[in-house]
């Protein structure tokens, strides 16, 4: 029974991790850029959601309709001002443009909000559902369900809409997609925006569960990197399984090893995956496509 409890908690946590990582993997898949500022945008989303609650008493979940489009617009702006200019630059520019951005954003938050932990008190934050002997936090369950909806929504968007098809075409064969008239710049811009919009949702989902502070992103971004690398960089289905696996590993290692060692376990897994299977656990499909070309 205890084991079931641990597994369910792990999966719910994993759902949140999926939501944190899906934008990162989407951006990498299309733009081939590793966004080191991913965590800082999550931090912005969380502060946005906090402010809406504090100023106008808008519930974080309802606030998604403002925060997610807000992050989309921030994404467009960041793409135009920074990312666009390093698209063909050497590695050092691509890496350190987003690292620099992240440093600037975190310290701006420190200046504006100070280092205090700010949290949102909602009526449902402490509600725990009991099914048989299994106890489930309501906020975590809602987070999990939203993560599932968003992930499948994004799959649907990529599969059925014109824009989604254009994005996929651009990922699969950039040159051909340009030749058939897909506007590459627009695809990059929209993808970056969507990637950040998913963080807008993740931020709102996290807000009832977790306090916000200027460096909150650097904690979560490492988890997101682990998830994305585990699933294969750019692989959305992979990120979904990766998130659930990391959630499970975190809750199992917390129980069987020690809570302070949880992170150690998944960072070691992270380096092992990078070294042994850099294409990720699900990376075989991507590789086959390259061979077929």
């Amino acid at each position, binding site marked *: 029974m205890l084991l079931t409890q641990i597994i369910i908690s792990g999966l719910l946590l994993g759902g949140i991790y999926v939501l944190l990582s899906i934008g990162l993997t989407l951006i990498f898949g299309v733009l081939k850029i*590793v966004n*080191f500022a991913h965590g800082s945008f999550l931090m912005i989303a969380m502060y946005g959601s906090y402010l809406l609650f504090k100023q106008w008493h808008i519930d974080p979940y309802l606030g998604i309709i403002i925060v997610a489009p807000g992050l989309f617009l921030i994404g467009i702006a960041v793409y135009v001002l*920074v990312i666009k*200019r*390093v698209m063909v*630059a*050497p*590695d*050092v*520019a*691509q*890496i*350190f*443009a987003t*690292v*620099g*951005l*992240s*440093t*600037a*954003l*975190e*310290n*701006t938050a*420190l*200046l504006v909000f100070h280092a205090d932990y700010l949290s949102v008190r909602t009526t449902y934050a402490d509600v725990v559902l009991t099914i048989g002997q299994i106890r489930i936090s309501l906020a975590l369950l809602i987070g999990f369900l939203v993560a599932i909806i968003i992930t499948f929504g994004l799959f649907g968007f990529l599969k059925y809409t014109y824009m989604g098809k254009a994005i996929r075409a651009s990922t699969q064969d950039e040159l051909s997609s340009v030749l058939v008239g897909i506007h590459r710049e627009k695809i990059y811009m929209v993808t970056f925006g969507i990637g950040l919009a998913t963080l807008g949702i993740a931020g709102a989902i996290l807000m009832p569960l977790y306090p916000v502070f*200027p460096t909150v992103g*650097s904690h979560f971004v*490492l988890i997101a*990197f*682990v998830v994305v*690398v585990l699933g294969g*960089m750019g692989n959305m289905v992979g990120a979904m399984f990766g998130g659930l696996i990391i959630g499970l590993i975190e809750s199992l290692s917390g129980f069987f090893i020690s809570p*302070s*060692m949880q*992170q*150690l376990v998944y*960072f*070691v897994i*992270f*380096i092992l995956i*990078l*070294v042994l299977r*850099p294409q990720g656990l699900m990376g075989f499909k991507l590789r086959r496509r390259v061979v077929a070309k």
Partner: protein
Amino acid sequence: MKLSKKTIIQLTILAVVAMIPLVLDNDYYLDMIINIFLWALLAGAWNLTAGYGGLLSLGHAAFLGIGAYTSTILFVKMGVSPWIGMLAGGLLASAVGVLLGYLTIRLKGPFFSLATLAFAEIMTIIAVNARGLTRGSEGISVPFKPSFANLVFQGKIEYFYIGLVLCLIPIFIAKYLEHSKIGYYLMAIREDEVAAKSLGVKSVRVKLIVTAVGTFLTAVGGTFYAQYIAFIDPYYIFSVGLSTQIALMAIIGGMGTPFGPVLGAILISFASSYLRSALGSAQAGVHMIVYGLLLVVIVILIPHGLISLTQRKWKKQAANKGGDKTIVKN
């Protein structure tokens, strides 16, 4: 031996710098200069692997921490002189660096950065949890017992000269790399690994050698830091922020050049103290906002760093690139 004009200028600058403590008897400025030496050493060590080898580490603070912890633990627990501790820390960091490098050196660009980032996180977790050895999150203080053997001094002048000598080491190594076989190998790998390999360059071995040297120097900087500041905090010494700051100085100054990191360290340190005094300590993070944005602007507009503005060679290269573009357009 006939000295070139450039060498004479460099030696003159060095002599002037070495005379600073004789004329300047102000602890505030001496402290600032010692900090510049430390940053120049760290950025210079990062530059050896990142600038010349293209290994863009985002976890160099891990080796700084290994150096600081090794010498301090040996000193505090066993009374071993930090001079020996410095060597021990350096060798340990080299060994760890080569082992980590052996595993991760084949990773490309951002993936290598991610692996090093994760490694620094692992080191933080170990340092915080191995309480018996490291006193966990409390950190360790270095006892104040001034003597040469203890590498602890009453005044700042001794630190000044030790720092000066240390920060020259990466410059000499970088100069050596620019005119030696291993340096040519390394730069060939950085520019085009496949081509270099096909010409018989043993790419992994060359990268590991420079990693061993770079991590050794970083750890030496760690010992110097611990002895000078007299306190190590695991959440600072292994932090991504510190790794970023090391890289930032080298990039802003100019990667892959002997003097770029020094220029970066000088500019950033002066900018820090100026911004701090101009804005007051209430605005704690302001200087970091400026650095972050500066880093973004520099990598976009002046990817070869500020030192490139003084070099004609680079201007010529830029002109050539412009020429290529027009051909493509036609």
